[in-house]
């Protein structure tokens, strides 16, 4: 790949240079199939066992789904058992919303998080949350935007539930004590997201996820009916005698390695995504715990999954310095007017196209020799923050303090110079198939948030993830609290694990690899 070095490109850069007009748009499907990482040769394989046998799946994920469990029946002898009405696995925004909703309806809730409560992708979200509240906007438009950006692969019933919940989700968050940016007249401030027809992103400067997560975390900790177990990873689900119903989970302490069984009527998976699998060798914007655990557990117990060959590479991950490689630069900047420039100082794509298209366009520029190369490796294009600052002085400091705080550590001032960006693995578009209550195809098992699929189709628009985790978190929590009136499980078994092992053996596949992974391998060389 050719193209100038970072130093040469910086020397040639002027924040007041004249910009040539945008080139004619290229057919999005051609752009995607030529340059989007989902279409890389060898990226996709076919699943051989389990409920999705025969469907296409990303290779690294397929390797994880078709594995043996970490534990066996012998490991469970003498393990202490705890009973609860609802078990929530995952301590991000979706897990907290589900726990609060279940507790509000009188259920006893146990929330297990493999890290500290709130230590999640939610806390890192920057841009904001979508809900159609502006005059001229509507739930109908929000729904159309969501389905269209997802290439019409989303489930209309789920999308209708998502967008219909929007305004009430914002009210619920405010009631929990979450702040949002306001206009001088007191309205919620809104911005446009890529691929949308109206401004409907609400935000708390560029710390929306942090504000949401610290409020929900506090609300969960303070709630009398919710017990929180931190540093407790789910290593396997539990099933009834027939292996057909989920009746609990086995948790492993991350501090001392001990196991505990939780017996329950409903399990809500809220384990997030899998960026830390570094699909196709990409860096990721994701949190360390994003290792796809929930998909593995759900698949082994028989839940159907969807869109396993579709992932979101966020267009603007940082390239330089290596310390911050893959970290996100919020789409809010493009929403506020920042443009993307190649090494020749030209715009090459409408910056507010959906994320998959903008990412593919950036990859095209770099592959065709119009990328910028830092000495430390990698390649990228400019996100012209300096031009944005020039046109709206003070904007970066007022609305994007997180960007400034982060780049300060790296010795870069985005008000003075553009920042180098390249797509970063950001989001799992699909996941566990759910209904409008977040219920999976396995009785007793719910999935909410990034681990669930069917809403975003094959590409998610900005702000719909934060909306989904709260909207569907509340739906699943309420539904699980309701089903907690059923009679509890008689027997807890690992029958589904035995069934999955038989399937692997019949297919002639290896039983050596075990999953879930819990943490990326590079974090624990000393263990």
């Amino acid at each position, binding site marked *: 790949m050719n193209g100038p070095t970072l130093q040469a490109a910086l020397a040639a850069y002027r924040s007041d240079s004249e910009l040539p007009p945008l080139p004619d748009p290229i057919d999005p499907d051609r752009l995607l199939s030529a340059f989007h990482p989902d279409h890389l040769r060898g990226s996709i394989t076919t699943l051989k066992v389990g409920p999705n046998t025969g469907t296409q799946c990303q290779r690294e994920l397929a390797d994880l789904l078709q594995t043996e469990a970490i534990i066996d029946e012998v490991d469970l002898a003498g393990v202490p058992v705890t009973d609860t009405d609802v078990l929530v696995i995952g301590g991000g925004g979706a897990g907290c919303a589900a726990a609060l909703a279940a507790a509000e309806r009188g259920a006893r809730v146990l929330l297990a998080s493999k890290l500290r409560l709130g*230590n999640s992708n939610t*806390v890192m979200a920057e841009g904001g949350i979508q809900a159609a509240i502006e005059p001229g906007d509507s739930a*109908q438009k929000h729904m159309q935007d969501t389905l269209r950006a997802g290439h019409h692969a989303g489930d209309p019933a789920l999308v209708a539930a998502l967008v219909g919940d929007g305004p009430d989700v914002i009210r619920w968050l405010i*009631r929990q*004590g979450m702040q949002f940016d306001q206009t001088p007249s007191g309205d919620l401030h809104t911005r446009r997201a890529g691929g949308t027809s109206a401004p409907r992103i609400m935000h708390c400067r560029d710390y929306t996820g942090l504000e949401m997560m*610290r409020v929900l975390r506090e609300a969960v900790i303070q709630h009398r009916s919710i017990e929180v177990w931190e540093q407790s990873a789910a290593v396997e689900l539990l099933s009834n005698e027939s292996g057909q119903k989920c009746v609990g989970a086995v948790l492993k302490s991350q501090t001392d390695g001990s196991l505990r069984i939780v017996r329950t009527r409903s399990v809500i998976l809220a384990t997030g995504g899998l960026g830390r699998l570094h699909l196709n060798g990409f860096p990721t914007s994701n949190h360390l715990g994003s290792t796809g655990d929930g998909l593995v557990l759900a698949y082994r117990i028989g839940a159907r999954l969807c869109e396993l060959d579709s992932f979101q590479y966020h267009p603007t991950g940082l390239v330089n310095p290596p310390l911050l490689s893959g970290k996100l630069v919020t789409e809010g900047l493009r929403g506020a007017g920042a443009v993307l420039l190649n090494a020749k100082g030209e715009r090459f794509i409408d910056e507010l196209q959906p994320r998959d298209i903008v990412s593919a366009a950036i990859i095209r520029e770099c592959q065709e020799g119009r990328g910028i190369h830092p000495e430390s490796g990698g390649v990228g294009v400019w996100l012209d923050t300096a031009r944005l600052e020039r046109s709206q002085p003070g904007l970066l400091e007022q609305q994007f303090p997180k960007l400034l*705080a982060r780049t300060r550590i790296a010795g870069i001032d985005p008000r003075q110079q553009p920042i180098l960006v390249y797509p970063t693995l950001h989001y799992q578009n699909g996941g566990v198939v759910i209904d409008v209550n977040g219920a999976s195809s396995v009785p007793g098992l719910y999935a909410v948030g990034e681990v669930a699929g069917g809403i975003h189709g094959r590409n998610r628009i900005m702000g719909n993830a934060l909306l989904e985790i709260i909207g569907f978190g509340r739906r699943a929590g309420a539904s699980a609290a309701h089903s907690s009136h059923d009679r509890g499980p008689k027997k807890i078994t690992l029958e589904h694990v035995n069934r999955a092992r038989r399937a692997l053996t019949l297919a002639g596949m290896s039983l050596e690899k075990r999953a879930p992974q819990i943490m990326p391998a590079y974090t624990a060389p000393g263990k």
Partner: protein
Amino acid sequence: MSETSDGATVELTINGTAVCAEPHMTVVEAAWAGGVPRVTGVGCLEGVCGSCRILIKRGSDVGVALACETIVDQGIEVLFLPPPSTALHQYELAEFDDGWDSQARFHEIFPEASRCRHCHGCVRSCPRGIAVEEGVALATAGRFREAGEAFFECVMCELCDSACPEQIAPAHVGLFSRRITAHFHLRPPNLIHRLEELRQHPFSGPGEKESS
């Protein structure tokens, strides 16, 4: 994870283990590269989850920081701190009657807040550079909006809570201030208008497609 660069390495200790790191590594990367076991309090790697709390000794200086944004330095000693203990102050916003009693409730919930002895321990321990002490004083005076604003960049690492000899729990004071402000005072007309429209005409789902 790390670039391979020739030249000098940096020697430090992490949790008592001697570690050799490359100069541009963070303490987290150095811990991984050096095989330091049981470093469990790490998550976002960008300074917002507040989990990777460390005690750090440089010469005779001892301080606290977040490991993911601390670059290694020759001879430093680092100790990963255990997660903060459970919050001491219990309250549920749903149990508050209205905004008029929030100052009284604040002093019931956080009786220690008015006993600040201005030792600056909280300010010195904050990795975000927040004016913690001032924020607590504002909350004590019932100025919750301003107090909450002071804590805007708080990542709830709770290092200030650990530093406070009066057990004021400043991070939670800040969060209380922010929550009470939103809960009682954030009433955005555009949102309220849309909620009212939806109450009268609920969204019926997919329905007919608008032309696009």
